[in-house]
């Protein structure tokens, strides 16, 4: 698993899959584990190939090769995306950087209506990282990939000196296939459309704040990190002409709603009372002066659906495990094109802007 500094050896490995993979003896990552020599091969074979375990990867070629016929049978467009993950801390309630790196990229494909199929995995490791930590992250990536039904088929590993990175950064790219007839686009929101989300907002951001432990809050908030493509497929099956769909990660619901409003030149009015928000998350926001609409999510999407389809989509959402707390949270309006407003519980209205400045660095 690398841009094959192992050279011809990789090919011979592929031809002789019965050969025992080498073991990594070291307890911590050293610069040698990225140098292309034996240390690197031990790391790749033991920690990565062993965990991700699939024939495309085990071939250890410079690239994974995928038969086109298997793709064209599923749809008429290829979807390709990439994302890098630098979350701090690496492990947090409800997830870790590995689970995040799989689901984040899966969800970027999912909200385009694509069925995610293959992921890549690029690792940047800081010298001194405990191998046990890396094993846990990689195992978590494998578990998340299995849950999402995707395979991690190629990758790369680099090691940088102490201080040049913080423990472990991951990049994943993903390939998926979009079924014919799906026509999602951020420019398609129309006045009268309903705005939906699939459950409690802000859990991921709140879980990270908790995990950093700066405030000693007695909370048990779990990140909502989860794959969304099953949910999206169920929503599209219930009503194929969903207008807009995006996952609300950094910048939260507020950012996505603003993107839709701007690109569609419409106004969006959210209704505070109908937005699902856990008491613990709300309490944290009250205490720290955070806006839950700005808090990051890792398993929430915002959908814009024509009014005649919103009941069907909401029912499909609530019937799916990733959307049991789904709700209609607002509507698209003619007034104030490009702007998002929120009607407060008391009836007053305010503009919902995108967050500016540094909110919570390294949230994902």
């Amino acid at each position, binding site marked *: 698993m690398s841009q094959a500094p192992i050279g011809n050896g990789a090919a011979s490995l592929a031809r002789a899959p019965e050969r025992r993979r080498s073991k990594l003896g070291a307890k911590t990552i050293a610069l040698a584990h990225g140098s292309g020599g034996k240390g690197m091969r031990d790391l790749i074979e033991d920690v990565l190939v062993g965990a991700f375990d699939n024939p495309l990867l085990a071939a250890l070629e410079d690239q994974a090769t995928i038969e086109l016929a298997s793709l064209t049978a599923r749809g008429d467009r290829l979807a390709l995306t990439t994302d890098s993950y630098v979350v701090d801390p690496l492990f947090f309630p409800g997830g870790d950087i590995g689970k995040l790196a799989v689901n984040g990229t899966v969800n970027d494909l999912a909200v385009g209506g694509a069925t995610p199929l293959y992921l890549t995995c690029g690792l940047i490791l800081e010298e001194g990282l405990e191998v046990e930590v890396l094993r846990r992250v990689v195992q978590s990536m494998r578990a998340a990939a299995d849950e999402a039904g995707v395979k991690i088929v190629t990758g790369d590993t680099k090691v940088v000196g102490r201080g040049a990175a913080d423990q472990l950064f991951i990049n994943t790219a993903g390939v998926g296939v979009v079924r014919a007839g799906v026509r999602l686009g951020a420019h398609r929101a129309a006045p009268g459309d309903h705005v939906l989300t699939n459950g409690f907002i802000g859990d991921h951001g709140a879980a990270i704040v908790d995990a950093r432990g700066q*405030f000693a809050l007695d909370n048990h908030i779990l990140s909502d990190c989860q794959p969304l493509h099953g949910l999206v497929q169920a929503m599209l099956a219930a009503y194929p002409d969903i207008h807009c769909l995006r996952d609300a990660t950094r910048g939260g619901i507020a950012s996505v709603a603003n993107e839709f409003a701007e690109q569609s030149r419409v106004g969006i009015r959210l209704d505070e009372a109908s937005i699902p928000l856990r008491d613990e998350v709300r309490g944290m926001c009250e205490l720290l*002066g955070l806006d839950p609409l700005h808090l990051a999510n890792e398993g929430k999407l915002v959908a814009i659906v024509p009014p005649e389809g919103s009941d069907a989509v909401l029912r499909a959402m609530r019937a799916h495990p990733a959307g049991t707390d789904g709700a209609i949270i607002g509507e698209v309006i003619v007034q*104030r094109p490009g*702007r998002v407003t929120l009607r407060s519980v008391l009836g*007053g209205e*305010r503009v919902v*802007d995108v967050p500016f400045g540094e909110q919570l660095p390294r949230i994902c």
Partner: protein
Amino acid sequence: MKYVDEFRDPAKARALVASIERLALRLARPGRGPIQLMEFCGGHTHTIFRFGLSQLLPPSVELVHGPGCPVCVLPMGRVDDCIALAERSGVILTSFGDALRVPGSQGSLLAARARGADVRIVYSPLDALALARQHPEREVIFFALGFETTMPSTALTVLEAERGGVENFSLFCNHITTLPTIKAILDSPDMAIDGFLAPGHVSMVIGARPFDFVAERYRRPIVVTGFEPLDILQSIWMLLEQIASGRAEVENQYARAVRSEGNAVALEAIGQVFQLREFFEWRGLGSIDHSGIQLRDAYARFDAERKFGVKQLKIADPKTCQCGEVLKGVLRPWECKVFGGACTPETPLGALMVSSEGACAAYYKFVDVEQLIRRRRGDVCRAEPEKVAP
């Protein structure tokens, strides 16, 4: 959510708004413009915008957003001094997150951090003291700011540093006091405020009694106010009641937290550690006598200004900036010439655009800015400010 939802009950809010409307009708004064009530505190400003409270009020009652955002009113020279301290070798400069964004003449502390200064966010001055203990070889400076609300924790931290014999900890002290500032607003000739919502958190420390002079000397009603929407609506109603019955008194709406004599322990710590400066410069308001706070001579070794000798830079506010007029209620935020154009939260020119508790930033963030700017272009006339009674 307990202790929160009770103070956001929509039915109670409607009832209060109805009472306010009835009073406002009785108080209507044709040709003299709306009744102007000032909330001094940035925390109140935030609640007002977050819940859209101004829209619930009748047009004859207007809220003016005061200078009670300590981050906003810090002059650029002080920020430049602070950056110079941060860029000294061996220094770890610590402060609250908001303070890091305040622009000086050469950018903010965040910009200094990007250039290599060791600038860290803390959530309490005690965190800064803990850092000093962890890094005995470094000097940890806490950029202290805030009204009486944050003074006790700074004072207790200094006392703790003294007890523990910590030598590598100091303050860059920018604490300011509420009362001289309210007085400065009341003394200004173009002042148009009919009543005040007094800051609840400040009052938890100093009590309600220190506001007596507002009622007695300036004949303005003032109500100590909590931070939930119903607190603010109730206080507005209490102010209008006073105006309607010709009274000018100090009342305490926030009795669940504020005692009229304040918090003796906090006041004692403040008194032990701090003394008034002769004068202190405010962004947007100019110099106000006895409004700044510094460490007493007995604690001079914890005073970064004396320990390292800062330059005391004086940098004038940008000429185009009309923060002063907005702070006194003479202009509304969107009536300022640079609002939303040269001055935005990303690149603030004036004090009030700096923090989310500043009136202009709150307007920019929570109100339809384009609509306001259109209004400024088309219609900048407004009623003459009411003449101030002596």
